[in-house]
């Protein structure tokens, strides 16, 4: 039976657009993070805290992805940063094309740092490159310490892991060392931050790290 060799990625179209996004970011020297987590881990809170502390030093832009509402964009806009809300109306993850369209609303030459807050979902976004510099996966102490083991693909493709809500450790059955061990077993290269957006504990390490990356 004759065979036609293909050897093509099925999501090639997304990858091609992601590469276009990446070129645009490189040309404009913008550091971009794709912020990922389950719904409710604290992505928007982390973003708010980051904006609060870095807004004076760094030109930041935000792309918000949600199934419905622009609540997150409204929270972020209080910090006087350019923000674009993508409402997917059912789509459970952002794709490169959606981000590419959103980018048309920014003056990219004036941005140094862009945060893409993805739709809350630990499954699908792992497969869709948006053109980001890094993937940052968040989880919180109220989600169970075996979260990384349950969603290995997401933790495998991420570069940074943030454990939020450490202020609640006394009130939940969450073993911090176990959570980190699960995560490092899946992805030994993960850089891990433990913090509380609520109390500010651990935030300094995240902010210092970010500053050093953005300004390189």
């Amino acid at each position, binding site marked *: 039976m*004759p065979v*036609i060799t*293909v*050897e*093509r990625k*099925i*999501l090639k*179209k997304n990858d091609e657009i992601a590469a276009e996004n990446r070129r645009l970011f490189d040309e404009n020297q913008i550091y971009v993070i794709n912020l990922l987590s389950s719904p409710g881990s604290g992505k928007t809170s982390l973003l708010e805290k980051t904006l609060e502390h870095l807004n004076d030093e760094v030109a930041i832009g935000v792309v918000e992805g949600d199934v419905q509402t622009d609540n997150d964009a409204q929270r972020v806009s209080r910090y006087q940063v350019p923000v674009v809300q993508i409402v997917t109306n059912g789509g459970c993850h952002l794709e490169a094309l959606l981000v590419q369209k959103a980018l048309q609303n920014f003056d990219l030459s004036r941005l140094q740092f862009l945060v893409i807050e993805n739709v809350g979902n630990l499954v699908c976004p*792992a497969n869709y490159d948006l053109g980001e510099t890094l993937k940052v996966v968040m989880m919180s102490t109220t989600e169970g310490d075996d979260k990384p083991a349950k969603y290995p693909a997401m933790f*495998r493709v991420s570069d940074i892991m943030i454990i939020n809500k450490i202020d609640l450790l006394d009130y939940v059955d969450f073993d911090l060392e176990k959570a980190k061990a699960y995560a490092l077993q899946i992805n030994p290269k993960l850089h891990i931050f433990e913090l509380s957006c609520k109390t500010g504990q651990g935030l300094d390490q995240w902010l210092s790290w970010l500053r050093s990356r953005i300004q390189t």
Partner: protein
Amino acid sequence: MHEMSIAQNILEIVDEYMVREPAAKLLEVVVEIGEMVAVVPDSLYFSYDVLVENSKYQDSKLIINILPLQGTCRSCGHVFKIENYNFNCPSCHSLDLHVQGGQELRISHLEVE
């Protein structure tokens, strides 16, 4: 995860190749999916069949090969099946691995007549 849109993407790529072979009839589309990709084979088979029904590809079949997670240690050369998503070498415990069978989602080839 998005099996219908993945099936659509598959058929778009198939079209690109089949248009260059106008006399050929598509029999099989062989795809390779890594163990860590959240695609449910039954769902993908179903989506494919729904999309090709009453089309020029209606007699074709989708074949899915799941690629198991495999590691090749860059430190000692040991080749092994990665169990329990444990990404370190069972022989020398190195973390420096070349990994296959994780995130692949690709069309390998088409069988035609």
